[in-house]
Structure formats: C-alpha cells, structure tokens
C-alpha cells in the first residue's frame, strides 16, 4: 500500500537542483511531485516519479546520494477541508506524520504523500485512512 519515492541529499548551493532535474530528465524520468525540505546548508529533495528504480540508478551513476523510500499516497477530495480531515483521522489514531507533501493528480484530486514517524504504525495508518473513506493509491495509479 505504498509508493516509491526518491530522496536526494543536495547541498544548498546554486545550480544543484537544476543539475539534479537535468540528470533525471536525461534519464527519461518524468516527475509527478517534488518537495524540498531545506536548511541553510543542505536540502532533502523528495520526488515521486514514473520509474523510481531507473531514477535511482541514474542518480547513483551521477554521484548523487539518493535513496528509494516508501511513502503512503492518499487521494484527497478537491474541496475545503479535504486534507484537514485526513490529518485529523491520523491524529485521532495517535499516529504522527514525519513529513508529507501534496501534489495534484490529473483526475482533479489532490494527492497527499506522507510518511508516518513510527514505521511500525504504517499498517495501522493505512487501516485508519481507509476506514475513514479515503482512497490509498498504489504504484502505477499515479501515471
């Protein structure tokens, strides 16, 4: 019930993000989401794309420090309060979210990619989310 995400460690320096994107472009990778957690010295770039393993191989070859990690992708209804309800569901179940980011899907819905802080709670989170009526997306459903 998880999708693959690429996490890349980048120095917070001019041109680094451009170089990263060019590297993925040259490998024929299409991104559907990109988020940056930044500090003054470095940034963590998280990417959802069509071919995670191919992206990882291209990044490794180019000398990037990249990892494939798994996140939960949830379809969020396109209306006020959609995301709030999802997060409240998790909060009610005492599940905390390590990080998350939104991106839009071509069907008009928003998608929230999230990682729960305690990986032992991942299955519990899926259960709570589905019980609350949200749809969890599988790998391949994003394209």
């Amino acid at each position: 019930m998880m999708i693959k995400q690429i996490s890349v460690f980048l120095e917070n320096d001019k041109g680094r993000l451009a170089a990263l994107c060019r590297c993925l472009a040259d490998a024929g990778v299409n991104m559907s989401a990109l988020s940056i957690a930044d500090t003054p010295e470095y940034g963590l770039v998280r990417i959802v794309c069509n071919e995670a393993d191919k992206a990882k191989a291209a990044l490794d070859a180019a000398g990037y420090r990249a990892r494939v990690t798994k996140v939960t992708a949830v379809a969020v209804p396109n209306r006020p309060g959609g995301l709030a309800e999802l997060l409240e569901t998790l909060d009610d179940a005492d599940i905390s979210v390590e990080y998350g980011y939104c991106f839009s899907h071509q069907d008009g819905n928003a998608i929230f990619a999230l990682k729960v802080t305690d990986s032992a709670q991942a299955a519990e989170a899926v259960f709570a989310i589905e019980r609350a009526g949200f749809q969890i997306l599988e790998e391949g459903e994003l394209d």
Partner: protein
Amino acid sequence: MADEHDGTAATGNAEAADVTYLPHEKLEEMQLEGVRRTLVNCYEHIPFYKRSFDEAGFDPYHLASLDDLTNAPFVTKQDLRDAAPYGMLAVPLSDVREIHMSSGTTGVATLGAYTQHDLDFWADCFARGIRYAGGGANDVVQVAYGYGLFTGGLGAHYGALASGATVIPTSAGNTERQIRILREMGTTILCCTPSYAMHIADTALEMGLDPSRDFHLKAGIHGAEPFSDNFRAELERKLDYKVLDIYGLTETMGPGVACECLEQDGLHLAEDHFFAEIIDPATGKRLPDGEWGELVLTTLDREASPVVRYRTRDITRILPGECPCGCTHKRIDRLHGRTDDMLIIRGVNVFPSQIEDVMKTFDQVSSWYQIEVGTDERSLDVVTLKAEANPDFDFDQTGAIEALQRQISARLKTDLSVGIKVRIVEPKSISRSTGKAKRVIDTRKGIK
C-alpha cells in the same frame, strides 16, 4: 658466545635475542651510557653539535640522567641537509663502509653513513623483525624492496642474512617474476612496501592463483609507508599470512629502528641502540608514555652518523605496559602521520589522523573528509569537518543528518578536546585526487 647478559656490543644474532629480553632497568643503564658516549662523540667530532651545544649552554660531559637529555638541543632534517654531504660524519671517511640516502622527495637528500659496526647492528635490528615474525634459519626471505640508496632493500637483505635465513634478493618490480619465485622457491617471508605487497597479491589473484595453496608465506614485513588496519586485514586475507610493520629512517639507521611482533600491537623499539622520546611538536616539551607526539631519537652506538635528539617528524606514542610477547623493549604505536600535517586549533594540537580515527567509528560516513580551518569575527579558530554520508545511511528520517553531525562532533570534542563543527556533504563534493587527498584547507591569516 658472549656473556648473555652483556648486550652492549650486540653484533651477533644470539646476543641480540638476549638483549630484547633484558630487564628494562638494565636497558636504561645501557641507554644512559650510550647517550653519554654519543654526546661526547658528537661534540668532539661534528662541528654542528659543538656549535649547537655551546649556543644552548649544554654540557655534553656530565649528563646525570636520561631525563637531563631534555636540556640538549634538537637536530632537524634541515640541519642534516645543511651539513650535506659529509658535515655530520663523526669518523674519517676511510672508516665508512657504506652510504645510503633518504628518498629526498621533500628536498635535498640526507645521508646515512655506516661503519662496519653500524652495518652489523643495523642487520641485527632488522633481523629482530624477522625473528618476531617467527623467522630464522629455516626460512626463505624474499626481499622485494628496491635495492640501492634506499635503505629498505639492503637493510632487509642484511637483516635476513643476520637472521640465518636464506635470502632471495629480487628487489622491487617485475611482479610476475616475484610471483613465480614466491610460488616455486617456497618463500616464507616477504619483505617489501605494503603497497607493493598489495600489488603482488592482486596480480597473483588476477593470474588465477590461490595464495593460500600456491604460496608458502607465513609473514610479510612491510614498512616505509603507513598503512591502516583495514589495509592490513585485506592483505592478510589475500595472501594468507601475517603482516608486520617495521619502522626506520635513513637519518638514524634505516628499517629496524622499531619492529612489530606477532601481537600486532605496537612496534618494539631497538632500545639498546636508540633512546626515544616523545615531544609536543609545538613546544618541544617531552611527553609522558601514552601521549601522542613527535618521535625524537638519539643513537646510542652509531659510529659514523650519530644523532642527538633527532626530530623524526613522525607522530606516534610510546605504548605503556609490557608486551605479552616477552620482549622488554618499549613499543611505539603505529605511525599517526607527520608533524607537517599537524594543526594547532585554539592551542590544541590536532592531527588529521586523529579525526580519521573518530570517523572510522561511524558507519554512516565514508573515509572521505576535508577539514576547513578559518577564523570567526572574534578571530577565534573555527574548524569545520566535511564528511560524506555512506549510501546506506538513512538520511530521509527527519533530523537524521543533524543527529549524525551532533554525534560526530561530540565524539571529536571528547577525543580531541576541540570543538569541531561537522557538516555532512554530498558525495564527491570533496575533491579526490589520484595522489594524496587534500585533507586540510587552512584559511587563517599567517598560516602557511
């Protein structure tokens, strides 16, 4: 056979065997006598020492104890260079049997001259290394150090002869022939630089040989270059033998000044021929056993090229305690770099190798690092260590990078007593050169 308790004129193998087991107090008596002899010899025969002792107000005739040697001035590599070629000879050239020269990679070559006595005790010192490795008359020693001005080749050669072993003087190079000899002649002890040993091992493996079956090696005596514990383990695995370190330098003799035993926990100094001190390279003060600093050597019975308090620029420490092997001679730790690499951070001496040691304890980072030294707005030294994360480090966890940086920094603070900021950087952002890596970037004003 000479009196077994008399090690003062160690010329034969049997005597040398005994001298390595002498009670340490007895060794210290010999050392005091030897230092006194060297002081007078240098003062009376080498103009440099006459001038240097007189300028320092040091009296070479009345040394009360080995501790009082701290009043004597040092001699440096530059002093030896300035006196080249024959200015540091304490005997007429007619008494000199052989001359070697240091590699001279850092400037003018310095010279080591040997009388017959000097050659004999050099052979003896190297032979100890072979004996510590379990070698003797039944061994075949292949000497793959370069023969020539470099002390490695002939030092190992004379040592192997003195040990009673059979010597095969292959010299360095022609690796396939080295391998053929290793295989067909039943070599049991290989003497060469550690990097050449690795090259031999890799070549043998590429040729499809299985060293544990095709070779008969029991030990390798590999000096002249520092090598890490990992490097040692890899060599031992590839060639199925024991790797032992050996230390020496042309300025005081050549390889054999200190030899590692099978305990692989430090190198036994030939204390019957050398008196060793460890000093703080910044202040020149002598340091107690156990503390890291610069090795300073005084020869005890060198005739042609004696030295008093020669600053080796090599960083090590004297290991406290006795070695389980039974040899009473004190041990120096494996070399920790050179004083040329030393940094002084807010008054504390820091060697890049100490930083490396700390980093080795963290699986999350690789061995690539760079140290940046600068000053802040209050003119205080600021040190930043840049390290690369290993591929399996899970940096995706929030705060994982900060936590790692903090942990390494805390360990550095504990081990080095210096606050160092740690920054995890992208791989390859630290430049890699094929030769020596640029480990330190010092941007402080007035620092070379």
